[in-house]
């Protein structure tokens, strides 16, 4: 009866193939396509063997086999894994022994199953194995021997079983330390024919009771060939490693595909602090090529990628230096792609060299060169180098400037000796000598005129330049422009003496407020020996109205004879400037200065273009005229002055040209230099400053006087304010007192009247009562005035006829006037004169003035002197109301204080009447004033402004 076998395999074709094999091997096969079917089959039927493909889903779990074995304890259960089309691996679960893995072929799978079922499962498992498996017992005798072992070591199983394991060991000559450890190691084994094999030995210990070893299993794998190859490769690799380790450049080989470092030399320690060996296997990305000066890692990844992409070597200088470098480091890294036979880049070789020193030196060198160029360029002197023929190789900006060029490059490659400017310098011979003999050459204050016409003074120093062989290669010349310095020096000297003289002139000017004296002092300064020392000086005044220069003064001798006389006299007398000035003024007065007579006749139109004096005035500039060839000279002026060599400078006061000074050396014939001109200019400037200062002083005095006046006015105004305030305060007190007095006054007067009424007319008491009544009435009148003054009533202006107003007022006073036998003369216009006034107030003003007039004439007895005149006069802009009397008139004090409150000339009265009048008139926008008239009395005028509408309604005729 055939044995029953269950084949579980997910692949139908594989399953069918195995089933076929099983039938040929005499099995009765059943099939299961998946784990549930397998499980069902195992539970349903009795099988002698179960083989399961490990690929079957769910078979990963190792417990499955044990479970099948538990259900079918007598069955042979194994799992197989397909390794390739022909090879398989078999795992078998067996009692006591962990299933070894066996490699065999698919065809032999069934043989193996059969063997497993027939015999000791372990025997067949080992025997059938292609692996060289040797099992020994506790005594070291061989108990099992696989097919693979037979192939490897040449012994047949039958002849070796039972022999000691030493048979296959190399022997006593090569004793092997017996290791009982489980594990893999290299060992040597002896073939049946005697040669020694290198094997990889996997030893598995077989443990008995109490963990004692009762045997062991060795699996041997022949490694003889591979070990030798590996050793050779290893040696070669070591050799190369040693070679590249000797190189100080950092070398790194990168696997292009994986980006891993496959080789790196010792030199890397310098950059990374890690030896090459430690870097191998790491990805290149993880290992930067050192760090930059800030400590940041410097990656070479980009370089590698570039080399791979371009398939060309790539180089870059990275800002990465050796770790312990004191200054910023630089590394020149080259990435070289290695291209294999297929044309692909499989490796990139990086070679890095520390170039910090070179970069650093280069930077230092460049800085040094820059500095040198900077020095030469900015040196305050001109520097020129030439070759041995004099061709200029280098010139700086200052050198170009000295020769009158704007750009140093214009000088380059020109021959120094061919420069026309150079020819004037008298240094050609000296420089040629330097070039020939090598002797240094130097000259001070060489004169030259540069290409742009400027006159220069130059100090020159020349040194030879040598070739390497000692021959003279050219010269280097240093040219120092000292023109400005010399000028300054000369000017400083001149200024020092000018200043001393100016101080004296300034003194003269300061003490003089007279412009003529000041101008004469200036001329004295121009001609004085201790001053500017010109022979003669002319002063011409600008007349801007007539637009001409007019001669004003001149100083100096008219001819040589007079010159000798004057100069001798001056030398003998040792006069100071003030004395000279005094003498000069006297001489002018007496018309003894002959050239002054020439001067005062000079008339030069400002518009004359060729007239240098006019130009000096208009252009506000100084000029130097040097002889009759000078294009600026007009013949006319030269004839008048009697010389064609002179200096002319403008005199500018307060930004206005007030004149020009012409100075010459006509007598001595001494040349006028540019320095003389400058001194004259400077002197004129200083002199005008002195004059301006004198004018300022005068103005200051005037301002001071104005200030004093203003101060006085302010003081008066202040006093007025104080007085007004005092008056206002007085008014308030007066009002208060007046109110308090009124009530008792009313009772006194009231009861006095009551008493008077009850007394008979002839009773003397009646008279006394009357006195009380009258006095209280007077007091009440005073009260009313005081109150009105202290608090003027609001105005109620209406359009009123002033003619009617005057008439009405006079009517109310008729009795009073008549009683005193006073004659009135009234002069009023025939038609109404309208004005906008507060009629009550205006009546009060008029009543007041008339009452005053009555009082004024009270003392006169003669009828001739008992007249009052009242008139209304119309003017275009004003209405004038006049009240005149024939009284005693007004004395000075009265005129001054007439309208002041509380001022009175009368024995009675408050002194407020006229004050109130003035207030009322002022409130109407008018004015009141008084004057003495021809009648011995006073006339008061009230002037009121006329409004437009009032004018139209008025008849302009009328009046006195």
């Amino acid at each position: 009866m055939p044995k029953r076998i269950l084949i579980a395999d997910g692949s139908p074709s594989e399953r069918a193939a195995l089933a076929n094999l099983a039938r040929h091997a005499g099995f009765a096969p059943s099939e299961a396509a998946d784990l549930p079917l397998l499980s069902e089959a195992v539970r349903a039927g009795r099988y002698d063997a179960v083989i399961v493909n490990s690929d079957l889903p769910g078979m990963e779990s190792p417990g499955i086999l044990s479970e099948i074995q538990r259900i079918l304890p007598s069955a042979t259960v194994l799992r197989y894994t397909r390794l390739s089309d022909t090879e398989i691996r078999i795992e078998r679960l067996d009692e006591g022994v962990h299933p070894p893995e066996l490699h065999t072929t698919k065809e032999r799978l069934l043989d193996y199953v059969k063997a497993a079922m027939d015999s000791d499962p372990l025997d067949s498992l080992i025997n059938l194995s292609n692996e060289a498996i040797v099992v020994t017992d506790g005594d070291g005798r061989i108990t099992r021997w696989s097919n693979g072992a037979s192939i490897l070591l040449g012994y047949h199983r039958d002849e070796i079983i039972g022999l000691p394991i030493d048979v296959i060991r190399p022997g006593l000559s090569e004793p092997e330390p017996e290791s009982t450890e489980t594990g893999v190691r290299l060992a040597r084994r002896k073939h049946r024919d005697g040669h020694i094999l290198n094997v990889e030995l996997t030893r598995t210990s077989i443990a008995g009771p109490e963990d004692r070893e009762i045997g062991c299993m060795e699996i041997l794998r022949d490694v003889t060939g591979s070990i030798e190859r590996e050793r050779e490769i290893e040696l070669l690799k070591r050799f190369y490693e040693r070679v590249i380790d000797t190189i100080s450049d950092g070398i790194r080989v990168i696997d292009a595909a994986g980006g891993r470092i496959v080789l790196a030399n010792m030199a890397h320690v310098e950059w990374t602090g890690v030896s090459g060996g430690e870097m191998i296997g790491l990805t290149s990305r993880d290992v930067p090529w050192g760090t930059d000066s800030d400590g940041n890692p410097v990656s070479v990844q980009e370089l590698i990628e570039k080399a791979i992409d371009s398939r060309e070597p790539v180089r870059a200088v990275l800002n990465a230096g050796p770790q312990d470098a004191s200054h910023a480091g630089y590394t020149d890294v080259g990435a070289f792609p290695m291209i294999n036979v297929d044309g692909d880049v499989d490796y990139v070789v990086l070679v890095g060299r520390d170039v910090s020193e070179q970069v650093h030196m280069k930077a230092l060198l460049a800085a040094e060169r820059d500095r040198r160029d900077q020095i030469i360029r900015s040196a305050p002197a001109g520097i020129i180098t030439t070759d041995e023929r004099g061709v200029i190789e280098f010139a700086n900006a200052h050198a170009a400037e000295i020769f009158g060029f704007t750009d140093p490059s214009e000088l380059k490659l020109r021959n120094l000796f061919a420069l026309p400017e150079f020819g004037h310098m008298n240094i050609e011979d000296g420089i040629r000598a330097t070039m020939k003999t090598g002797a240094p050459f130097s000259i001070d204050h060489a004169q030259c005129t540069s290409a742009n016409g400027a006159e220069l003074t130059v100090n020159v120093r020349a040194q030879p330049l040598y070739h390497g062989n000692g021959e003279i290669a050219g010269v280097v010349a240093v040219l120092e422009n000292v023109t400005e310095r010399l000028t300054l020096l000369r000017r400083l000297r001149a200024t020092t003496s000018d200043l001393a003289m100016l101080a004296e002139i300034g003194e003269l000017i300061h003490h003089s407020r007279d412009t003529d004296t000041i101008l004469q002092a200036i001329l004295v300064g121009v001609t004085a020996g201790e001053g500017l020392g010109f022979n003669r000086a002319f002063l011409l005044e600008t007349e801007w109205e007539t637009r001409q220069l007019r001669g004003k003064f001149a100083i100096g001798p008219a001819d040589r004879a007079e010159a000798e006389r004057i100069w001798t006299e001056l030398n003998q007398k040792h006069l100071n400037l003030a004395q000279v000035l005094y003498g000069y003024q006297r001489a002018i007065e007496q018309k003894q200065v002959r050239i002054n007579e020439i001067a005062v006749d000079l008339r030069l139109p400002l518009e004359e273009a060729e007239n240098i004096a006019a130009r000096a005035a208009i252009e506000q500039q100084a000029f130097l005229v040097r002889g009759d060839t000078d294009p600026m000279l007009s013949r006319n002026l030269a004839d008048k002055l009697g010389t064609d060599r002179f200096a002319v400078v403008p005199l500018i006061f307060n930004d206005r040209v007030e004149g020009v000074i012409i100075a010459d050396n006509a007598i001595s014939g001494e040349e006028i230099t540019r320095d003389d001109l400058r001194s004259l200019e400077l002197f004129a400037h200083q002199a005008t400053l002195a004059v301006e200062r004198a004018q300022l002083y005068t103005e200051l005095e005037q301002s001071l006087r104005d200030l004093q006046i203003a101060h006085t006015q302010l003081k008066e105004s202040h006093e007025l304010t104080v007085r007004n305030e005092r008056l206002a305060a007085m008014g308030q007190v007066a009002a208060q007192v007046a109110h308090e007095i009124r009530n008792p006054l009313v009772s006194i007067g009231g009861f006095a009247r009551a008493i008077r009424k009850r007394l008979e007319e002839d009773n003397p008491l009646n008279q006394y009562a009357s006195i009380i009544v009258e006095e209280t009435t007077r007091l009440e009148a005073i009260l009313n005035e005081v109150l009105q003054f202290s608090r003027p009533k609001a105005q109620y202006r209406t359009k009123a006829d002033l003619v009617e107003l005057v008439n009405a007022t006079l009517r109310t006073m008729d009795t009073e006037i008549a009683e005193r036998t006073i004659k009135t003369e009234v002069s009023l216009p025939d038609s109404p004169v309208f004005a906008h006034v507060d009629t009550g107030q205006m009546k009060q003003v008029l009543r007041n003035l008339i009452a005053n007039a009555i009082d004024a004439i009270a003392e006169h007895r003669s009828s001739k002197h008992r007249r009052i005149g009242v008139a209304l006069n119309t003017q275009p802009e004003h209405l004038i109301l006049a009240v005149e009397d024939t009284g005693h008139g007004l004395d000075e004090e009265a005129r001054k204080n007439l309208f002041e409150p509380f001022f009175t000339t009368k024995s009675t009265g408050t002194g407020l009447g006229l004050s109130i009048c003035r207030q009322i008139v002022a409130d109407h926008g008018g004015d009141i004033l008084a004057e003495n008239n021809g009648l011995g009395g006073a006339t008061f005028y009230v002037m009121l402004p006329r409004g437009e509408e009032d004018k139209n309604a008025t008849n302009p005729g009328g009046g006195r």
Partner: protein
Amino acid sequence: MPRILVVDDEQSLRLLYKMEFTQDGYDVDVAANADEGIEKVRENTYDVVILDIRMPGKDGLEALGEMLAERRSIKVIINSAYTTYKDNFMSWAAEDYVIKSSDLTELKQKVRKVLDS
């Protein structure tokens, strides 16, 4: 007989006015302050009230307002030592405004004028 009320804090003036107006044939009543005057106006009927302004306590202008509130038709003449109150519009409610004077002619004229109207 026309009835007159004189309101004034000055006793001498009350006496003077009472004497003068009684002589002229008026029935004269007096009050020494504003409240007394108002009280009298409430209780009696006067043809004319002569009213001072500056008084201790309530002043004449206030009194004028209250009197008018009491009796719409009452006739009041203000009699003050001050001219200032002429500018106060309250004073315009009075029939007239007379500055105090020892000569009572003007005041008497104004009283007559009020009675005649």
